[in-house]
């Protein structure tokens, strides 16, 4: 079994329901996110549009975070999920530095690394991840990539040529796919970040201890 995720960006409307569901399900502290939706505005007025890209851990086949973790706190589950053992984590932040997707953070409450686990605890009980359940337009598709009859496999087959991953050049082989993505949505270097030009300019950031 190899669990994977696919987001159809044609369908996503940026409601952030997935973000909230994830926060609630996993008790993600203030100022940190396991899953977040990035907005990128494209074009020049009046020809403009807003794109939405949900970003979470890519559960890579060749995960740099798993490789760099000195104590195996980050580890693979049999179903392909890259899971984290917060009790074992020493908080070296090597995984945060290694992840090319910025998907790992230091939890300000536990002072350990944390990230999306595809809701491994729910999956173990045969439930869908919280974000999948919350999505009002079924833009999140989750399932077994090894099973050609699963929804995700069929979706990938029916969208051949329009399925992308983030930063394929890193060689991480992500198990998280996008349909309808493009350079602007998936490449962080393809858009500007203008200071003070964000919908939320004053985001509270909790200290994560020491001088960090």
């Amino acid at each position, binding site marked *: 079994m190899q669990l994977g995720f696919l987001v159809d960006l044609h369908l996503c409307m940026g409601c952030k329901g997935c973000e909230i569901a994830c926060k609630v399900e996993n008790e993600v502290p203030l100022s940190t996110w396991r899953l977040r939706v990035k907005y990128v505005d494209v074009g020049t007025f009046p020809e403009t549009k807003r794109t939405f890209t949900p970003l979470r851990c890519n559960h890579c086949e060749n995960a*740099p975070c798993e490789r760099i973790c000195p104590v195996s706190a980050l580890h693979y589950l049999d179903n392909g999920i890259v899971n984290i053992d917060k009790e074992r984590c020493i908080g070296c932040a090597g995984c945060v530095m290694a992840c090319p997707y910025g998907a790992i953070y230091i939890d300000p409450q536990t002072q350990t690394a944390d990230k999306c686990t595809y809701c491994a605890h729910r999956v173990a009980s045969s439930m869908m991840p919280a974000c999948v359940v919350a999505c009002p337009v079924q833009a999140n598709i989750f399932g077994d990539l090894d099973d050609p009859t699963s929804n995700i496999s069929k979706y990938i087959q029916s969208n051949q040529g329009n399925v992308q991953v983030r930063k394929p050049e890193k060689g991480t082989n992500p198990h998280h796919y996008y349909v309808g993505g493009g350079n602007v949505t998936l490449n962080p270097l393809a*858009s500007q970040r203008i200071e003070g030009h964000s*919908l939320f300019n004053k985001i509270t950031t909790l200290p994560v201890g020491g001088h960090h």
Partner: protein
Amino acid sequence: MAAHEILAATNAVVTLDVALPGTVWPWLVTVNMWAKSIGTGVIFMLFMLLKRYPDQVGKLRFPTIVASIIFIHIFLLFTLADLHQPLRMWHIFFYPHITSAITVGAWMATAFVGLLFLLAFLSFVKKDNAAFDKILPWVVALAIPVTLYTAGLMSQCTARELWQMPTESAQMIFAALLSGSAFMLLLGGGKLNWDAQKSLANILALSAFMSFVLYMSEYIFGPMKAEEVAAVLEYIKGDGPYTSMFWIGQWVAYLLPMLLIVISRVSKSESILKLAAILALAGLWVVKHVWLMIPQLLPMS
């Protein structure tokens, strides 16, 4: 950032992305790398001096080992201070994950410290220089991977394209040679004859030159290979936030010491050599700090 990559046609602007808080590895990690360079570098220099100037170095065995122990402990202390869960450090020894450079480095650094204490014992308590000199080559051999493991760690940071293994390992070795020779010039100045000091100065100048060449190669040619490297190097170009610090580091760590060493060769001045050594040690911290910080400024999403 990276305006060169952004198409005017798309005029794409990120209007909402709660990117994760900035610096993950702060100045504590800079001190870690800096102190480790000195701690291993002085061992390399002691070995070289014992081979080339055995009559000069007799009294430097114990002070050099003490210096190495002090700087390796600074390195270990700051490594520990940088952990968010320092009390769980023992997990590295009881739940080791050997694909991680951190694990391998921790094991080797521990063995290195053990050998340093053995050398201190042989030198100070037993006064057995013959045994000291027999064990020293093994300590030198271990000092090489202890110096290099941080390069391995940086290269395992897949997200930070700037840190590539061949370059980083070369930088680490040159940093150890530079700081080791600089520290030995300060530690053993009066006890070493001019020839021995010249040898140390040559090593300092050559490692400074090679380090400078590596940084300039990265600065000029790095952006031609990878867009992430190009974007990161924007932080040390033009009015980038680390431009001044980068050039201060290059001048203080490499260019001025090289110049001062040339002058000292003409004037045979020990004071100028010592000034070059102090500048090299101070500048190395700045250089390492800039290189540690700039990749962390780039948004990953």
